[in-house]
């Protein structure tokens, strides 16, 4: 099966054709917002890092920003720096060049202030948008699709309806030769043995168990209790008692296929099929990591309701909670609450999600895109100095 996407110079395929303006540092975020304002198709990243970072922490910020630039949903990139940050705009731009798309960079100190930077940035972005408009969608096999999966604001319906239905859709994507990313490692605690059992090799299975052990140890090492954060108060009000219960409901999202690979945060998958990306349970951290890992579309299940969206990709929102769907129709794309009433099967709902993914990949705007919801948050792993 195909979706209608955009073929890129490096052979990869996108489902959107954005011009992306990346602030290499928090200091230039305001300018990037101003550059993209009122320019349809241009988006910026609400990056709050990019300076006073060292080692693996700096690398992770760089890799995430570069990953958004290289994501095939992006047609061309303008990187805007201030000029004195330790993650320079030039370094980010140069790392995006191998993807074959047009990349430019400017710095506020060099151009001479914010107003001039905005004017120059708008000129460059307008040119890029004109070139982007000339590109047409073409049939792309589903085997080239990377679908990010996520759940947030979970309640009892997540494990009973929306996650199993998304799992059925994940199986359909993998069945077409595509790739599905499962993430939120902390929300595998208590269910890791089930996922490890499905790994392609014992080594991959061991990686899953090691990751969970690391997160659990980190949580305990803080002297705190993971239970203070997860399940969240809303999860508990919604009937979820423990992290294990949340996790067991959570892993349904990945469907039933073999786990092919475990990847680190913001790295693209190197295998087709089901892959696990190591991310926190934090909704925006993990969505950002998967988009930097070149996912073109995300499916997000929710029980309590969430507004989450991405600057560069459709985020399809699914709920199994009829009341949440009624209250938050402007945020939620699909209602699968009939599963709980026994009026729709998990397979039927999964098919609907799969069809919605193909429609979104072919250009249908998700509700988060219509609302202009463009969340961005890098998983920070070190101190700012």
């Amino acid at each position, binding site marked *: 099966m195909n979706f209608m996407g955009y073929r890129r110079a490096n052979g990869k395929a996108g489902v959107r054709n954005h011009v992306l303006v990346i602030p290499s540092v928090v200091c230039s975020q305001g300018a990037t917002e101003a550059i993209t304002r009122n320019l349809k198709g241009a988006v910026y990243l609400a990056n709050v890092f990019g300076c006073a970072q060292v080692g693996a922490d700096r690398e992770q910020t760089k890799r995430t920003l570069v990953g958004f630039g290289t994501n095939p949903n992006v047609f061309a990139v303008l990187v805007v720096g201030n000029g004195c940050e330790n993650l320079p705009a030039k370094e980010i731009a140069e790392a995006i060049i191998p993807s074959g798309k047009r990349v430019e960079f400017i710095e506020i100190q060099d151009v001479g202030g914010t107003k001039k930077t905005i004017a120059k940035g708008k000129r460059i972005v307008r040119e890029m948008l004109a070139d982007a408009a000339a590109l047409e969608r073409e049939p792309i096999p589903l085997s080239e699709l990377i679908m990010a999966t996520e759940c947030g604001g979970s309640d009892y319906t997540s494990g009973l309806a929306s996650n199993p239905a998304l799992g059925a859709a994940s199986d359909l994507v993998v069945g077409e030769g595509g790739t599905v990313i499962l993430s939120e490692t902390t929300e595998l605690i208590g269910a890791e043995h089930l996922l490890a059992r499905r790994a392609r090799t014992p080594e991959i299975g061991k990686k899953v168990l090691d990751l969970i052990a690391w997160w659990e140890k980190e949580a305990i090492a803080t002297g705190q209790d993971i239970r203070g954060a997860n399940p969240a108060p809303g999860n508990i009000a919604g009937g979820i008692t423990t*992290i294990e219960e949340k996790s067991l409901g959570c892993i349904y999202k990945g469907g039933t296929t073999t786990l092919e690979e475990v990847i680190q945060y913001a790295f693209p998958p190197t295998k087709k099929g089901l892959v696990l990306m190591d991310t926190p349970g934090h909704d925006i951290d993990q969505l950002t990591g998967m988009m930097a890992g070149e996912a073109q579309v995300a499916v997000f299940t929710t029980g309590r309701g969430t507004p989450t969206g991405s600057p560069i990709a459709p985020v399809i929102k699914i709920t199994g909670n009829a009341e949440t769907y009624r209250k938050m129709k402007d945020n939620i794309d699909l209602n699968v609450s009939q599963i709980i009433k026994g009026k729709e099967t998990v397979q039927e709902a999964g098919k609907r999600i799969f069809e919605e993914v193909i429609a979104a990949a072919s250009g249908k705007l998700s509700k988060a895109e219509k609302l202009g919801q463009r969340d961005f948050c890098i998983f920070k792993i070190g101190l700012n100095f």
Partner: protein
Amino acid sequence: MAEKSKAIMIHEKDNVATAIVPLKAGSTVSLEVQGRKEKVKLLSSIPMGHKFALRPIANGENVIKYGEPIGETTAAIARGEHVHVHNVVSHRGRKEGA
């Protein structure tokens, strides 16, 4: 049977079920999964989405949902009683002594 749709038992090994509508104390709920049938009289009111015990669960025993342990009880729980954070604790991510 309309009565059956008031709560869901997911796995035959489960010792709890999930209310899918608000349930009143004193009412009786019928459930069925994988050939196992249960009829439980509720001792507590159960908010929508919350769990109740399908059989007596001893203090310190595992609570089973999805056929897997989701934590252990901190008090003996009677059949038909509300099962939640007041009488169940996670096995995982706990600091020492907690």
